[in-house]
């Protein structure tokens, strides 16, 4: 069966420090991968998505970047964190484009606090 992992679960970082959040998927090949931010009162915002290794699309301009070095690994990064980067970050996957089911499966999330 497929599983999705995220780490760390929680992170407290000072303003201006770098960031690296990791997401890995098991039990599937060539998934579409997504990074979302869930901010209090603002719902779920799509940040990045990837349809394959090295292919990243950004949905909103921001202080963050994403990379997909391997088929089932998705990384969210920042060179210098801002206070506004605080939030709950969710990684999700779904099958490739020809998968008939449009369901996305979510990881447990990372709670990031920037001080």
């Amino acid at each position: 069966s497929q599983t999705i992992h995220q780490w760390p679960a929680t992170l407290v970082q000072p303003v201006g420090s770098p960031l690296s959040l990791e997401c890995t998927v098991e039990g599937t090949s060539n998934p579409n991968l997504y990074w979302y931010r869930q901010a209090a009162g603002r719902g779920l915002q799509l940040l990045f998505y990837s349809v394959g290794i090295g292919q990243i699309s950004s949905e909103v301009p921001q202080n963050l970047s994403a990379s997909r070095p391997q088929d089932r690994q998705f990384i969210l990064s920042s060179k210098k964190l801002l206070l506004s980067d605080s939030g709950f970050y969710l990684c999700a996957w779904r099958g490739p484009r020809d998968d008939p089911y449009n369901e996305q499966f979510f990881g447990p999330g990372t709670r990031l606090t920037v001080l």
Partner: protein
Amino acid sequence: AQRVTQPEKLLSVFKGAPVELKCNYSYSGSPELFWYVQYSRQRLQLLLRHISRESIKGFTADLNKGETSFHLKKPFAQEEDSAMYYCALGPRYNNAGNMLTFGGGTRLMVKP
């Protein structure tokens, strides 16, 4: 442009009362609508999708293309229904990233 609106950020009802979580969407093509739920300390997970026309945990949702709505309903709320609910829109075709657009979410609180 795609847009999903959930007008209520918080909905509070008593146990046994009917529940309706509203969702309206804006999309010019053929939509695929979903409801996702996030219980306390659990992952966000799919509750139901309109193409399945199913009832999950007593919840149903009917796609109304005329009103561009996909409201989530349950005749008798239970305390365990307390959670955050998100409505999501995914175009069925021509979507290379298979992206979903989520609404802002509604927190449902069911009081004893």
